[in-house]
């Protein structure tokens, strides 16, 4: 019963997402119009390697001799059928290129999100339980620092300390290219490369969740049900474990869901710093190659990713907290 209801809910949310995606496509179209040169120039990647025949064909496909409204419709049709064009710089269709870079980014994001939520929640709860004592003050100070540190700079400084000076971790990439590891050795190699980029991005979000969890725990402890629990003789530890923490963690989860988009943005700089071969690095490369169409494609796919993750988080949330009505 519950599953059927959430399935219906999921489908309804997906249907609601359709206009959002369409607006994003229209936004991309607008950016194409703003770019110097006509759309065909941009779509060909400004690489100068497109043949005149190809350019003529592009202009025809996108109806560049037609009115703007028709152009928009043609563009939407093109994008909806997942034809995001061709990247001459990489010699590959944009969709395939993005697909090949999606995995590393997802790996980085999932690692960061899980670590930040788990450690942030624990630290926040710990700080709230030691309110205004030195533990709390120390954690508050660290979060203030982490919150103000530019992500790319944190990455560079971690490289200086842990790669250049100490030599504990590799400076860049996802695998040792020449090593050709297989199986377990390959996984260990990737994990070894993952540590620094994940740590860089985790620090900022961990600080955020720590602050949120601390405030949330303090708020829950002032609720009436805590008084009731005390009155019936539960120990503080029992109250914290069974009642307060479960309620306090909900705002953190909501926030984590909302921040997937911001996390993708952070991935761009972190992947650039560590040459992590994901979508962020691809975005940086396309920026340098002036491959605007590829950049637009990455933006489109990333936004779709955020929309899907948001829906998934909402569904998971409704399963976790039965009080939430599925509307």
């Amino acid at each position, binding site marked *: 019963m519950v599953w059927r209801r959430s399935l219906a809910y999921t489908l309804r949310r997906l249907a609601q997402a359709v206009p959002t995606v369409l607006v994003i496509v229209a936004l991309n179209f607008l950016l194409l119009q703003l770019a110097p040169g006509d759309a065909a120039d941009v779509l060909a990647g400004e690489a100068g390697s497109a043949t005149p025949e190809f350019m003529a064909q592009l202009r025809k496909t996108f109806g560049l001799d037609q009115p703007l409204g028709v152009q928009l419709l043609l563009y939407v049709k093109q994008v909806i059928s997942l034809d995001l064009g061709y990247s001459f710089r990489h010699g590959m269709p944009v969709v395939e290129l993005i697909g090949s870079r999606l995995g590393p980014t997802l790996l980085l994001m999932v690692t960061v999100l899980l670590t930040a939520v788990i450690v942030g929640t624990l630290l926040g709860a710990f700080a709230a339980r030691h309110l205004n004592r030195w533990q709390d003050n120390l954690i508050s100070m660290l979060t203030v620092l982490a919150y103000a540190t*530019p*992500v790319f*700079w944190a990455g*560079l400084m971690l490289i200086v300390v842990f790669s250049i000076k100490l030599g504990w971790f590799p400076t860049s990439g996802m695998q040792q290219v020449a090593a050709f590891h297989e199986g377990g050795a390959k996984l260990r190699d990737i994990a070894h490369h993952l540590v620094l980029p994940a740590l860089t991005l985790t620090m900022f979000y961990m600080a955020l969740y720590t602050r949120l969890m601390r405030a949330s725990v303090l708020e829950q402890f002032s609720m009436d049900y805590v008084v009731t629990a005390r009155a019936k003789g539960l120990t503080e530890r029992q109250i914290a474990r069974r009642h307060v923490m479960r309620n306090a963690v909900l705002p953190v989860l909501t926030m984590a869901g909302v921040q997937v988009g911001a996390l993708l943005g952070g991935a761009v700089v972190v992947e650039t710093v560590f040459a992590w071969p994901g979508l962020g690095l691809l*975005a*940086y490369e396309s920026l340098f190659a002036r491959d605007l169409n590829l950049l*637009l494609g990455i933006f489109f796919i990333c936004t779709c990713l955020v929309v899907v993750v*948001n829906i998934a988080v909402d569904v998971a949330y409704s399963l976790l907290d039965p009080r939430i009505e599925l509307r």
Partner: protein
Amino acid sequence: MKGGLLRFLRHRPAVVGLVLLWAVLLGAALAGTIYPGNPFSIVGKPFQPPFGEHLLGTDSLGRDLAAGLLYGARTTLLVGVVATVIACVLGVALGGLAGYFGGRLDNLLMRLTELFQTIPFFLFAILLVAVLGPSLRNVIFAIAVVSWPPMARLVRGEFMAMRNREFVQACVSLGMGHTRIILVHILPNTLSSIIVTGSLMVATAILIESGLSFLGLSDANTMSWGFIIGSGRTVLRTAWWICAAPGLAILLTVMAINLVGDGLNDALNPRLRSL
């Protein structure tokens, strides 16, 4: 107001933030006096370490890093403040209209706000600067475009709460026009929240600006902290201090603004102090 000032000064981290912020402002103001001339000009041998001939050493082309840092403070503060002001005006206007009039307009504006919150904002800023070209004006525009949604949500909430209060109803029954009610009666009552959120937005704007200029998306004629880090990146192994100093400057500035914002929050919204 006096009580507010006292509360602000009692908040020790906020005072620390204020002192730091004054230092940055002073540095930016005195950049031209201490280092007359162009911060891009070459003053000596490249890769000089700090505390030698030049206070912070020189970068990979032999430019004075201390001069770059002071001129960079100008760019950073300018971009941060101007972009935030634009984002605030946009957010207050859209959020205020949505909250005051409600109904269909509210629905439409909130859908727009949600859309902008769904978009990966940093990627969108990159895209905007890449399309429009990396000039100071376009960077400010891009940051403003991605920064207004939180302000719109906040102001909408405040306006919705005020809309049904007695003093607003009294204004309506006096026959006052919407414009006057909004500008003269509701807006001043929401100002403290706007100031607090706005001050914290400056910090975010500075982080976005430094990220953009780190990726090479900054005006080629203005020195900025992100640009120094971005160009020093390639020589990290031999001259890590080139990247270290401007990053510390960003960290301290952003932290100072956050601390001052928190202090303002305590001072202006005493009701929220218990949280």
